[in-house]
C-alpha cells in the first residue's frame, strides 16, 4: 500500500512534520518494501488555503492514506472528498510512523483534529 507521510526532511530517518498543509515535505512510501520518494510541499508558503492545495496534490498521487500529526478542517474536506484516509497523531521518524501505522497504532481521523491556521504557528 502506498501512503504519504508529512515530513520535516527528505528520507525515512527525518522527523514527521506534525503540520499537514504547511509541512516541509511529503514522503511517498510503499508500506511493504519501504521504497520511498520525497516531494517538497509546494503549498507550504501559500497565502491561504495551504491544506486545500496540499490536499489536491495528494489526491493526484494515487495513494490510499496520509500519515501526519494533525489535520485542519479544509484539508480534511478535500482528502475525504478524494476518498483518502487520514491517520493522525504520528510522531518520531517517518520510518517509525510507518511502523506505527502498520501496527494499527495511529488513529484514523474522521474530521479535523485542529482548527484552521494551526500550522501557521499561531500567527493568524
Amino acid at each position, binding site marked *: 500500500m502506498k501512503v504519504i507521510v508529512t515530513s520535516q526532511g527528505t528520507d525515512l530517518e527525518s522527523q514527521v512534520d506534525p503540520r499537514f498543509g504547511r509541512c516541509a515535505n511529503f514522503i511517498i512510501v510503499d508500506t511493504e518494501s519501504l521504497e520511498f520518494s520525497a516531494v517538497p510541499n509546494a*503549498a507550504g508558503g501559500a*497565502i*491561504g488555503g*495551504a491544506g*486545500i*492545495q496540499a490536499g*489536491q496534490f495528494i489526491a493526484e498521487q494515487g495513494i490510499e492514506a496520509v500519515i501526519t500529526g494533525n489535520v485542519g478542517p*479544509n484539508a480534511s*474536506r478535500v482528502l475525504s*472528498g478524494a476518498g483518502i484516509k487520514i491517520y493522525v497523531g504520528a510522531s518520531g521518524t517517518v520510518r517509525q510512523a510507518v511502523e506505527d501505522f502498520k501496527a494499527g497504532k495511529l488513529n484514523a481521523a474522521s474530521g479535523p483534529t485542529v482548527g484552521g491556521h494551526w500550522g501557521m504557528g499561531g500567527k493568524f
Partner: protein
Amino acid sequence: MIVAVAGGKGGTGKTFVSTSLAVVKKSLRFLDCDVEEPDAHIYLRPAFRRWSNVSITTPLVRAWKAKDPGKLKEAADFCRYNALAFVRGKLIVFEELCTGCGGCFKVCPDGSLIEKEQVVGVVKDGAARDGIEFVMGELKVGKQRTVRVIEKVRSAAGESGDVLIDCPPGSGRPALAAMRGSDFCVLVTEPTPFGLHDLAENIELLGLLGIPAGVVLNRSGGTYRGVETFCRDNGIPVLLEIPFTLETARSSADGKTLPDIDPAWSDKLAAVWNRIN
C-alpha cells in the same frame, strides 16, 4: 479634509481619542472602519437609519453544466486563494477563502459556475450626537473579508466636508485600506516600548503612503520617554498628551469622551484640530 485616527495593537484608546476629536469638531462624518471590533458607537450613540449588506460573489458549482470537466480543474488551478479544490472529478468551493475576485467565472463561462451572493458584513449609518453623521462597518462573525467591508465604509466618505476615520489597529492590510487617501493621520499610542514599536511601524506605512502624521500620547505620566524621543528625532509633532487617571479610565469605559469628562479638554482638542489644519 479626511483625517484618520490609527493606533497599534488594540487597547491604546484610539476610539476614545477619535470620538473626542469628533465631538469637538461637530458636524463631520465619522467612519468606524474598525470592522472587526467596532466600538465608536458606544461613545457617539448614533440612531441608525439604514443597514446595507456587504457581499461578495462566490461561485456555486453546477457540474452537470460543464461541457468540459477539465475547465473545472482549470478554475481550481486558477484560484490563487485556494478557495477551489478539484478532486476525483469534483469541484469543491471553500466559501470562507473566496475573495470574490470573479476569476473562476471567466475560466468557466459555460454556466457550470453560477453567482451566489455571500454576505460578509454590514454597513450601518445614521445620525449621532453633535451633528455627526455616523457610518460603521461590521464584519460578520466567521468571515474573513475585512478589507472588503472597510472599503465599503470608506466609500461613504463623500466628496466634500470633514471626515474622521477610526482605523483598525496595527499596520496591516485592514489599516492600510482604512487610512489610504486621507490627508492626515493621528496616531494614538501609549508611552511604553510596545507602543513605540507599533508607532514606528505605523509611521513607516504612512511614510510610504505620503500621509503626514501626528501623535497623541494616551495614558502619559510614566517615566518612559522613548516615544517622545522617537517623535523628536523623526520630526513628528506630539499633538496631545492625555495623562493617566483612574477617572479618565473609568469614564472612557462608560462611553464618555474627553469633553464629557471635563469641558476643559474641548479647547485642547480644538487646538489639535487647528494644528492638523
